Every structure is written in C-alpha cells, then in structure tokens.
C-alpha cells in the first residue's frame, strides 16, 4: 500500500508555504510516496521547480546507478565497451510521480478547489482559466468565480476543501458535481486538534450527501515539522504583525507536514477507502510536464522557409561585412553553423532576433547582441552583434549542442530609455496571446530577510539596519556572529539566535513574482495554453508565471530584450557627434584598434568608460596595459569576484608582464587556454578543459557547469572532483595539474563569465573609450545626460572633463537647456554647458517652459516668472544654482530678488513693468558671498562646483599635506594627504580591507585601510567626509597606494567654509560607497527639508 499526497502548498504560495518544492520532492522520496501534487494557490509557479528537481534526480540516478566496475572505456576510441547490466533500484529511491495542479481559491465559494488536470487538453483549460482570473485582477491577484469553474474545467479532477463549516460547503459541491460528474471529490484533511475522528466522520457524511467520494489529503504546508517556526514568521509577514501578536494565528503544532503512508493510515484508519482513492486519482492524472511540446513561431515570410531566408540573409551579410570577399575560413564556419542550425531547427529563432534588431535599427535605437549564441558568425553577419568571431575564440558548439537539446541564448541590449518601444513592437507583432515576458522570482536576499524577519521578531529598526549594514556588499551568507558581536549585540541571546537562524532559513525563499527584465517567450499557438499569464505591475505588460530557469527546463525559447544605460549614452554621443561634428557614427563604424585609445586606457584614464571605470579596474589597467581588443575582453572578465577568488589574477598579470612563463598544462589544453596565457578565465574554457582534459562529454561538462553553480548549496562537488581528477589522470596529467585545474574551475563556479558576454561588453568599453579619447566634451556631455548610470557622480565626470581641457560653462537661464549641451567656442573647440538637469529637484517640464519662452533672453528674474510661468520656488532653485549671473546678478542678489516674488501666478494689474510703475524698494546692501560660501552653495544646489575645490580653500590652514598630483613623484615613505571621500568600498573579495578614494583639487589618491587600522579608526572611516590620512606610500608602476596608519576626520573643518549647510559636500553615491548609510539624519541639508526634520537642533553657538 502506498499513499499519494494531493494537496501540498509550496513556498510559491508566497508568504504561506514554508518549504521549497525541491525539499518537498526529496522528502516525498524519503517517505516513499507514490505521487505528490504541488498545488499552489492559483499558481503553477512551484510545479516547474518540482518537475525540475525530479528530472535532475532521475538523471542523477541514471548516472550513478551503473555499476562502476562494469563500465569500461576503450582508450583509443573513447567508446564504452563491454556490457553493463542495470541493477534494480532499491525502494528508497523510487521516485514519486509529480501531479501538476493548483489550488483554486474562488471569490464566492465556501470551498477551495484542488484542480488536477488529467491530460494535456485539461491542462490547457486550467492555464486558460488561471489566465482569465489573473488578467482580470491586479498584479499577483487572481479573481475567479464559481461561474468560471463551471465554464471551463472539464477533464480536471476537482477536490473540494471546505474552508470553515461543512454545511456551507454542500451546495457548492453539489453544483459542481452536477456539472462535472465523476470528477468531483471531497478532500478530508486531518486537523490534529483532538476531534479528528468526529471530523472525518462528518466529512464522510458530507461526501455521501454530495455524492463526491471522500479522498484523504494532508493539506501540507511544510516538508518537515521544523519549518513550523518559519511558517509562523511567514504568517506574521503576511499579516503585518510581530511574532508576539500572532496568538492563535500561529500553527498550533507541526503536523501540517508531509506524511507517509503509515502516519496517514493511523489518522484514516476508519476510512481506508479515502487513502486508496488518492492512488486512483493519481492513476487518472496522466499529464506530465514533458508533454508541453512547445512550438516556436515559424517566421515564414512571403512563402520563404525560415532556413532559406536565414541562408539568404547570411549571404547578404557576407557581402556587407566582407566587401572584399570573405576568407575561406569564414565560409567554412558559415556552412558549419548553418548546417547545425538547420539540424536543430533553430533558424526561426535567429530570424526573430534579426527582425527585432531590424526594427530597432529602423527606429535608430542602438542595440547589441550578446549571450552564448550571439557571437557566432551568423549573428555577426545578420548584424545582431558587431563583434566578429575573429576577435574572440568562441566555440560554436558551446551554446548549440546537439546533446544538450537546450535552446540557444541570444540577449539583445537596447538603449534603456527606448527599450519599451521594442517591447511594445513585439507585443504588437505577435499579439498578446502569443507573446509574454517571463517572470523573475524575487527571492529573499540577506538584506530583505534581515529586515523582514527582524521586524517580525520585534528587533528595532536600528538593530536590523545594523545587522544588514554589517554585511557590506551583496551576499547571501546571512549574519556572521563576529559581526553581530561587533555591533554590540549578544549572539547567544535566545531571541536573536532564533532570528538569525530564521534569517538563514528564509534566504532563498521566493517573495513575489516580478517581471523579468526582458525575456520574451513567443509561441506559435496560444501562449495561455502553455502557462498562466498575469498582469505585470507596469502598464501594458503581461508576464507568464515561470522564470527563465523554468523555461530552460521545459525547453522553451526566449529572446532577451534588455536595457543598457551605456547604449543610451553612446547613442547620445553619436547624436551629438552628428549635430556638432557632422560625423554619422555607429558602433561598427568606430575605427578598431586605435592606438591613442589604448594609450589612454593604459594610464587608467577611464572615468566613465563602460565596465573599466571602477576602482579595481583602474588599478588593473596600468598593469594589464591593454593593446588590443582581446585584452579588453580579458580585462572585463578578469576583475570579477570569480577569477579573483579563484586566484587567477596574479598568475595572469605575472605572465602578461613576462615575469612568469605561461603554463598551458600540456599541449592538448594549450589550444584552450593559449589566448588567456594558460589561465582559464571564461566559462567556456572551463567546459573545454573538462572535455579535452578530463574526457567529459559535452553534456557531462555542461552538467558540471550547472552543478558547480550550485555546489555550495547541494554539496555535490566532491563526486565531480574525483571524477574530474580521475579523468585528467587518465589522460596523462599529473595529480598536481589536475588539482590545480579543478581548483581554478571551482573558483569561478558562482560567477563564471562567458566569453561572449565579455566580448560584447568589451566592444562597448572600447567604443566609449574611443569617444572619451577623441571627443572628451561629447563624451562627458552624453554621460552627464545619461545619469544616473555608471560609477561616478557628476562632480567627478565634470572634473575629469576639465582635466581633459574641456571648458565647462555654468548653468545659465539664458543659455542652458534641460540636458547638458555643447557650445562651439571661437577657437573651434567644444565647450560643455551645464543643463538644468544638474540642479537638484528641478523638473524637466519647468526647464522646458523656460527654454520655450526664452526668445532673445530674459532681462531679469521677474521676466522668467512672467514669461515662462514657473513657480517662485523654481526661480529660487535657479537662483540657488547661480543661474542668473548672466543678468549681472550675484547669487545672493538673485536670491533676494526672487524671494520677493511670492505669488503663484502674476496678477494682471501689476503685470506690466514697462512704465516703471512696479514697486520701488529701498536698496538693501547684502554682504558679498565669499568663495567658501559660493562653493558650498554650488554643492547644495548641484552637488558639484566649477569654482574651487573645498580642499583648495582649506589647504592654507592644513600644513604638511602632500597634494595628490605630487604622490606619483613624492619620495616613498610617510606622507599625509587630505581630501573628500569619493569612494569607500569593502569588497567581499578583499577580506576586510577597505579602499578609500580621496579627492583634492589636484586629483585623487587611493588609500588602503587594513582591518587593524580600520578597527582603530572605525568611526572616522565609516562616517567621515573629509579625511586626513597619514601612511606609507607604495608605488607599482603608475599605481600609487597609500597604506593608512593614521586617519583623522576633518569634516568639521568644512564648516570653516562659512556656510550653514556645509554638510551638502558629500559626493559619494551608494555605488561608490558601500559603507552602511546612516539612517537619514534629521539634520536637514536643505531649507526645503527643514520642515520635515524631527529634532530641532539647539546647538549652542
């Protein structure tokens, strides 16, 4: 005898279920259940996870079940020889059947319905029913009524679960039973409250009256009883209460767990038929997710088959890309790829991407393909990417392998501001019934978990802020006891310990569904027969319930339509080039391998350059000295957590600088790692090492890659390690080499960066570097107009532009636009005019009015008010930004004048100042603003200044400092520097070392703070804005570091600038400053915020 559990709520019923579908499956195997149905509330999202878990388990079992000693491989042909007899599986590893289904919660029914489709047609009806309910409702909701159930549920087994009383349930069940005779059952779930016998007897009575046979269900919420605490916490989150308020809403016990046959038999001892019926229902539900054969749109245009069209377009591309005739190698490659695509039937997919890219081109939206398939010669010829396969060492089989049976992957990046146009075009072309975005499951990550669990457990906000603040950077490791102690909390405190354990448990739980950034699923038939479709939070978007991994599992093709800020920036730069320089550029038209551009990168002059502008990259550039495109590809890929943790950076640099010889691990692997000097950097290389070195098949190698990505969770690395090393030994490598190889692959398991992505990014990095090198004004202007993006704040971008001899002109009411603009100077160079967008709190609409009504210019502030019709507050903001200098008004005078304008709209009688009848005021002589005040005002209004760096003003009062531009030549030894903090980072890969970047009027300095020093100057390092650092100077090439020994907080000195709001001088952004941000200080930084502040300051002056 066995039992099948038909009612299981996984954690995809958000904030209710307390176990992952995978955990439920594994537990079901342990309990020996014959089947398990994952039935989430109005959702099929959890089912796919369970399906995938089962699929992987099945494959693992097939892999491991062969008897090792019977398995022999012929050394020459690498074919298996001999007989290997399958052995019978032990009972414990009998895999349960997965029943697809969901729990339908209706708006007008006293019962919940478990819906289990019997076959594919019924499944399609179920997804259409869910789509109907979801499309009707808000995001995340599903509105279904009994009428819907009566309309479209044939072929679906319906199990009624009474919610409260049994009597209310009778009419509903009878109604449905009359409509679907033979498909309706009454689910009886034990309640473990002491009255189960009576309850089950009542259920049996109801079943009799409704003529719906009774079936045993567990109404399972968790896979083991120890998840009860988590279930209670989730209840609290759902109800927005703390754990101390939960009362009887808590689970009284842990019995709503998955149970085996013996346990269920004890409960249902009086009703054995109800148990048996679970098996009968299991037998009737024959639908399997495998059946979801998915049909891609055929993309037939004008009677031309996709393959023929693809071949034709490829030929056109050959002529375009190689006007002088392509080399034979290219022809061979094209033939090979076309053959493979035809064989696998992916030609239509390539055409879809081609059409999307074609549309974007026609709308002059900049785009670039990346992803595993994107760097094929086909994509190059079709114009999907501009990286030619010659430039990198891609292997086509990596992404389209016959064995894997997995779809190719092409992501296309578009300008982030215009991606919506592309998305709507796709909806329009294929229709909403055939195209949908896939979902992204938003999981609890460390910060969210700490915040929400902390709230439930009654920790105060500052403690939770402290807990999450202690985790600098993104990690899912949960809270570390040492850090907790550091925070002044006691990790042995019972409540805190519970909280921390629960935080660890909840990390990885799905929180809600959100839309994927741009993964489109397109079908030939109806999409809603494949998966339920729901509304996204954004208007005009519809998404399916599954995320991209689920789609991969089911073998569904998707096209990624992504947004990339840098593309917007580059397009802006191209537009500016066209308007001001008369060059019509495109990514493909940028001259390649430009020496001046690489010279610039070699000296780490990379502020604003895509992907290589971060502090770590800037340190790396002068050592790497990129001279060619492939160097950039490596540069992009190597400064990442994976390669850094895998210890690949140092060997590579040594080899690159010729200090060490490349070690390619023998001739066979040399081909694989030659281009990266014997250091595996890319995911593809790891796979090839496994194939070439350890004798893996392509499929096994791919499996290795996948399990590497999850080995920390599953702990399966050991078996792979043995297999890998044994394979390498068998191919004649030494143990040491094998271990090193494996270690390196292991190192970047989590972060493996595919070469194709690196190549696509490197292309954009090159283009942006080229623009910066040759047209710094254009580049700075485009970059400023694309903010917020990248690593640096506008202040640094402006400073960098001025260092490159670009004249930067201040904001002016009579000259500026919303965007920053370029102005031609008399000597022919371009000057950058700051736009209104740099003013804090300024709206684009207001800027528009000012520009439109400008005419020949405004004579005074009042005319701006009268003609542009902007509110006085806007004028005040302009005055604060010193935008009236053009009219001969200092900032203070302008502010004085503007404050006199108080009305929202001009009064008609006093509207005409022509006759000099306007109000005459006595002259008020305001004291002149000195430079310090002006500088602070600039920061208050724009977060940048063109006048003077604060350090320049403070330097005379701070003796003994070395200016930053002297650091490169200063004698090595002890020096002191002082500057504003512009970046402050503690990378997870640097074991507690903190990197600070300080800025003074001459440049920047890089400060390294070792953990010991940090402990001593903790407060200063965390909170200071202006620091004086004394320490040892280190130089390596042109990279200069200051190892901090003494750190002093000079932030109070900023008040010497003589302005009440000196706290505005704070340039760091969350991107460049990973220090925990203090809670928003009630000390307001701007008059507009003053009213909101909490504690009035009563400082004694």
């Amino acid at each position, binding site marked *: 005898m066995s039992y099948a559990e038909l009612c299981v709520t996984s954690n995809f019923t958000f904030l209710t279920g307390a176990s992952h579908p995978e955990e439920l499956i594994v537990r079901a195997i342990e309990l020996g259940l014959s089947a398990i149905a994952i039935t989430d509330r109005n959702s099929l999202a959890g089912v796919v996870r369970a399906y995938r878990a089962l699929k992987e388990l099945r494959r693992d079992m097939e892999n491991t079940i062969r008897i090792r000693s019977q398995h022999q491989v012929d050394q020459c042909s690498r074919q298996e020889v001999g007989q290997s007899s399958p052995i019978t599986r032990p009972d414990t590893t009998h895999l349960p059947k997965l029943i697809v289904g969901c729990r339908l919660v209706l708006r007008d029914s006293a019962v919940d319905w478990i819906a289990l489709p019997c076959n594919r047609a019924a499944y399609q009806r179920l997804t259409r029913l869910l789509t109907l309910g979801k499309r009707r409702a808000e995001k995340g909701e599903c509105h279904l009524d009994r009428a819907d159930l009566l309309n479209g549920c044939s072929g679906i087994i319906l199990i009624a679960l009474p919610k409260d009383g049994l009597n209310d349930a009778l009419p509903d069940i009878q109604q449905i039973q009359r409509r679907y005779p033979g498909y309706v059952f009454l689910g009886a779930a034990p309640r473990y409250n*002491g009255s189960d016998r009576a309850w089950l007897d009542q259920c049996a009575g109801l079943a009799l009256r409704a003529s719906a046979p009774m079936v045993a269900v567990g109404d399972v919420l968790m896979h083991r009883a120890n998840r009860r605490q988590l279930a*209670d916490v989730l209840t609290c989150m759902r109800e927005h209460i703390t754990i101390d308020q939960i009362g009887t809403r808590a689970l009284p016990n842990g019995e709503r767990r998955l149970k085996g046959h013996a346990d269920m038999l004890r409960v249902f001892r009086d009703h054995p038929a109800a148990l048996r019926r679970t098996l009968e229902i299991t037998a009737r539900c024959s639908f399997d997710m495998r059946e979801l054969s998915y049909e891609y749109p055929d993309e037939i245009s004008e009677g031309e088959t996709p393959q023929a069209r693809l071949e034709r377009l490829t030929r056109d591309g050959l002529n375009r890309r190689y006007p002088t005739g392509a080399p034979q190698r290219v022809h061979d490659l094209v033939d090979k790829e076309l053959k493979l695509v035809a064989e696998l039937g992916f030609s239509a997919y390539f055409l879809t991407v081609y059409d999307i890219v074609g549309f974007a081109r026609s709308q002059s939206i900049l785009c670039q393909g990346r992803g595993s398939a994107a760097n094929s010669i086909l994509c190059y010829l079709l114009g999907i990417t501009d990286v030619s396969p010659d430039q990198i060492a891609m292997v086509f089989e990596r992404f389209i392998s016959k064995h894997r049976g997995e779809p190719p992957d092409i992501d296309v990046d578009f300008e982030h501001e215009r991606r919506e146009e592309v998305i709507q075009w796709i909806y329009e072309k294929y229709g909403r019934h055939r195209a949908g975005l896939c979902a992204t499951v938003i999981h609890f990550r460390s910060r969210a978990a700490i915040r929400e669990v902390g709230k439930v457990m009654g920790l105060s*906000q500052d403690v939770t802020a402290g807990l999450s603040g202690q985790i600098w950077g993104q990690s899912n490791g949960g809270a570390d006891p040492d850090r907790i102690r550091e*925070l002044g909390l006691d990790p042995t405190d*019972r409540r805190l310990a519970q909280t921390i354990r629960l935080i660890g448990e909840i990390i990885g739980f799905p929180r809600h569904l959100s839309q994927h950034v741009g993964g489109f699923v397109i079908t030939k038939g109806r999409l809603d027969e494949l998966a339920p479709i729901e509304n996204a939070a954004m208007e005009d978007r519809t998404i399916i319930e599954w995320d991209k991994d689920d789609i991969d599992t089911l073998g569904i093709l998707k096209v990624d339509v992504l947004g990339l800020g840098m593309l917007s920036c580059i397009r802006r730069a191209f537009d500016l080039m066209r308007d001001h320089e008369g060059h019509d550029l495109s990514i493909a038209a940028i001259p390649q391998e430009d020496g001046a551009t690489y010279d610039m990168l070699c000296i780490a002059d990379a502020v604003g350059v895509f992907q290589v502008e971060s502090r770590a990259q800037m340190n790396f550039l002068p050592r790497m000295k990129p001279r060619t495109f492939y160097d950039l590809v490596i540069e992009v890929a190597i400064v990442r957590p994976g390669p850094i943790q895998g210890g690949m950076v140092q060997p590579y640099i040594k080899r690159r600088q010729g200090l060490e010889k490349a070690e390619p691990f023998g001739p066979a692997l040399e081909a694989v790692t030659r281009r990266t000097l014997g250091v595996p950097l890319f995911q593809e290389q790891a796979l090839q090492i496994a194939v070439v070195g350890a004798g893996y098949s392509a499929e096994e190698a791919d499996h290795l890659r996948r399990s590497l990505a999850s080995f920390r969770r599953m702990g399966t690395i050991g078996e792979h390690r043995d297999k890998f090393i044994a394979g390498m030994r068998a191919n004649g490598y030494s143990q040491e080499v094998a271990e090193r190889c494996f270690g390196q692959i292991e190192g970047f398991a989590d972060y493996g960066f595919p070469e194709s992505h690196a190549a696509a990014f490197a292309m954009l990095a090159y283009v942006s570097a080229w623009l910066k090198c040759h047209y710094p004004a254009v580049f700075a202007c485009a970059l400023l107009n694309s903010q917020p993006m990248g690593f640096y704040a506008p202040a640094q971008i402006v400073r960098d532009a001025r260092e490159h001899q670009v004249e930067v002109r201040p904001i002016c009411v009579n000259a500026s636009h919303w965007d920053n603009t370029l102005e031609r100077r008399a000597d022919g160079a371009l000057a950058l005019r700051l736009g209104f967008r740099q003013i804090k709190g300024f709206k684009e609409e207001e800027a528009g009015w000012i520009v439109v009504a400008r005419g020949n210019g405004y004579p005074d502030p009042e005319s701006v008010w009268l003609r542009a019709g902007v509110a006085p507050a806007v004028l005040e903001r302009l005055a604060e930004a010193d935008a009236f200098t053009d009219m001969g008004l200092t900032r203070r005078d302008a502010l004085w004048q503007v404050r*006199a304008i108080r009305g929202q709209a001009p009064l008609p009688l006093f509207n005409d100042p022509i006759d000099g009848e306007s109000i005459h005021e006595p002259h008020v002589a305001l004291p002149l603003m000195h430079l310090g005040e002006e500088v602070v005002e600039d920061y208050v209004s724009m977060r940048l200044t063109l006048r003077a760096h604060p350090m320049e003003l403070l330097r005379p009062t701070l003796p003994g400092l070395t200016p930053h531009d002297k650091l490169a030549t200063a004698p090595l030894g002890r020096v002191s520097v002082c500057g504003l903090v512009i970046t402050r980072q503690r990378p997870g890969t640097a074991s507690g070392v903190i990197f600070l970047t300080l800025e003074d009027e001459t440049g920047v300095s890089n400060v390294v703070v070792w953990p010991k020093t940090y402990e001593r100057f903790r407060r200063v390092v965390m909170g200071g804005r202006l620091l004086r650092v004394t320490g040892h100077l280190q130089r390596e090439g042109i990279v200069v570091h200051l190892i901090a020994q003494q750190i002093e907080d000079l932030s109070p000195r900023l008040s010497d600038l003589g302005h009440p709001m000196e706290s505005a001088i704070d340039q760091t952004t969350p991107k460049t400053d990973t220090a925990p941000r203090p809670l928003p*200080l009630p000390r307001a930084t701007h008059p507009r915020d003053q*009213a909101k502040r*909490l504690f009035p300051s009563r400082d004694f*002056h």
Partner: protein
Amino acid sequence: MWFPRLASDRVLRTHLIEGPFALTFRQANADRLHCLNTAAEQCGLHRGMSFADARAFCPDLQSQAADPIGDRRFLHVLRRWVTRYCPWVGVEGENGLVLDVTGSTHLFGSEAMMLADMRQRLVRAGLDARIGLGDTRGAAWALAHYGEGTAEAGAPHAALAGLPVAALRIEDETVIALQRLGLRTIGALERAARSPLARRFGPALLLRLDQALGRQPEQITPLVEPPHYGVRMNLPEPIGLFDDVMAGASRLLDRLCAKLKAQEAGARVLCLTLRRVDQEAQTVELRLASPLRDAIRILPLFERGVGEIDAGFGIDQIRLEAVQVEPLPVQQISHVSSGRVDQLGDLITRIGTRIGLENVQRFLPADSHIPERSFIIAAAAYSEPGEPWVAQRPRPVRLFPPEPIAGTGSRPPRQFRWRRMSLSTARATGPERIAPEWWLSDDNWRSGIRDYWHVETRQGRRLWLFYTPQNPGWFVQGEFA
C-alpha cells in the same frame, strides 16, 4: 531660564553615571538620541543621531529610554520651585521657563545677585541651566539660548546685535534663508530696510525682531495652579460618636463632590483625615473600583473605615481629600443606564476595602494556543471586561499546574492514580497536539509538545490529560465540569 539637558540631567540626578550617557527616543521604529550629557557630546554624538550609529561611534555609551512625560512633570516641578523668585512664571517650550522678575529683584539684592543665587541653587541641584535676562521676553530668550548674559535695561541692542538670527525664535527655514542672504546677526537684520524684509519673509520675522528689541509687547502667561480637591471642617466641640463623624463626612463629601462635578472629575482614592484634640491624626483611605463623585454612593463605603477609628478624647477637625482623581465627563442619564455595572463597582470596592483592591481580579481572554496563556488575570478595578470568550476547542473549567501520573505509551492509561484516587478510563478523545510557542522560552513547556486527551473516567470525573511524546510522561492539567 533654559535647561539644555533637562532630560538627561533629571535621570543623572537620581543615579550618577560616569562617562558618556544618552537618553534614547523611539521614533518611526528607530531609536534616536534624545538628550545627552557633556561627555557624550564630546564623543561627537549629537541629538537626533540614530542610536545604533552612536554606539558604533562610541561603544561605551550608556543609555536609557527617554520619558517625555516625566520630563514635562519635572519641568512643572521646577516651575513651582522658581516661584520663590517671582510669582509670574510660565513654561517655555519643552525645557525652558520664563520669569517676569519685574519688581522682585530687589528682594535678592540686585539682578546680578538674584542670577547668582539661581545659578548656585541649580548647580547644586545638578541641573545645567542657562539664564538670560532682558527687558523683553524675546531678549531674555535670545540671551539664554545664544549668549547667556544680561541685556542692559533700555538698551538691548548692545547685547543682542551680535547674536545669530536664530536667536529670534523664528522658523528654521527662515533662519537658513537669512543666513544664505548673508544676514547672519540680529544687528545685520536690524540694519536692513524693513519693507523688503517684510515682503520676503512676511510679518512674523519683523514681529519677532520687534519683540526682542522691545518695540512690541509680549506677555508671559503664568500657569494656573491645578485645582485642589480637599475640603476640611473645624469643629467647635470635639465629637466622638460614629454617627457624628459620618454626618461630618457627609457634609464634606457634598462639598467635595460639587467641586469634582465642576471639574468633570471623579475620585479614585479618597482620604479622610480625622484630627483628634491631642493632635494625633487618623486616616481612613478609601480606594474605589471606578471613578466616582456620587456622595450617596461613596458615603456608605466609609462606614467600615470610620467604625475602626479610635476617637480618643474627641475629634476636632475633619479633612477630606481626593488623592487620586480621574476625568469623569458628565453623561446623559437614561432609563436604560447600567445600574448593574455600578453595583458591581460598589461590590468590588466593598470587598476591596477588606482584602485590598488589587486582590479582586478578573479573567480576560488572551490570544494563544497554549492553555495557560489563553487567559490573563487582571485587577478588576483597573481593567474593563474583555471580549466574549471564543473557545476554539472545549477547555476544562478548572485548570491547574500539571500533575504527573503514572502511565506509558501514547494512549491514555487505562488505570491511573491521581490525587490519591484510583481512576479508570472509560472514554478518551484526542489527541489534540499543541506545540510550545517557540518564540517564548517557557519553563513549563520544556518537555516539548503535548498531546491533550479528554478523558472520561468510570468514576465520573472528566479530566484533561496530556502526554509529552518528546519526554514521555503523563500529566493531568484540568478538570471539566
């Protein structure tokens, strides 16, 4: 008179703490610093900073939760104390007092001597105070907060001109705006033309300026003393009979109740003091279950207390005081008004006078699966009857601490001894499994989950038994009716 650290000084007066100390105040679910001592300020902490940040900056910071109500009460205590200098004293904000010392300085010799006396006494009391003296309220405030000193009579300019504009008691927004315009001091502001200022900042700024400089009057509003609920009666001849005392009490009670009614208040605790001719005083305290001002209902409640009084040679003075008073608004009387509640209240009072009011208790429902925690016991006089009970599962009428019985296995024992009775099980229903509330650590539930059984014994008793599977054992915890 400004007390910049009133709240922390108040706490530190009672128990001295060395080193940095701060009071924290919970706002928007975050602890922030509310008031800190000098040591803490020297560590770079400031008001409004989040407590977590403060502790990261200064790990040895000691702290305590702020008590704004207590602080306000303390300020009122100070206000009363300050009336030793002058009769007109008002409260200024949360931590200041304003005194109108016109005409009372000579009592202390001179202005300077009076200020010195104030400072000396406040320092001795452990309070940090800043005192400003001026012709106007505005000038005194400005000097207390920003300069500390005395403005010469009739010429406030000299003392005020150098002070920042913030000293004018104007909104912070205006302060910042003036500072940005370069008008930083009161002197600069005064030199500027008035009409443009009024146009830009409204009349409030100029009003404050004029008030500070004495061009506009400003009053001090002294606080009224709170009403005193006490009445007394002197008797020409001593009395000693019970009825006489009660008659006297009755007359006093009428007067007191009239006073209470006028203030819409009700007495919660009454104190009847009887002074005998030998100057001994005897007190009868009456604690009421609910606020009352109905003389007819209160009077009989005194009978017991008065009966125990030893009149000695006679009583010549009776005082009646309502020691504790609660608001009791006047209500519409209707024919359906609940006399029963009043009767219950009187009963509780009556019993309370004998056994103590706190010992009269009532059960209130509580939200928990755990039987012991599904109710709470509250003093009846200080709580309202709760919601009606909703029993999700039948619960025994009597619940007692678990009493172990012999038994093995997960089903109730057929025969067991409990309270020296030999019982045998006739019918058992269950189990109802209840797991401990994991977020609390309850010693009674150390033995883990419990399976509750409803057991009917052949002897007639219906008991509530439980079994602890994780720590095998059987217990009786309750008895059904």
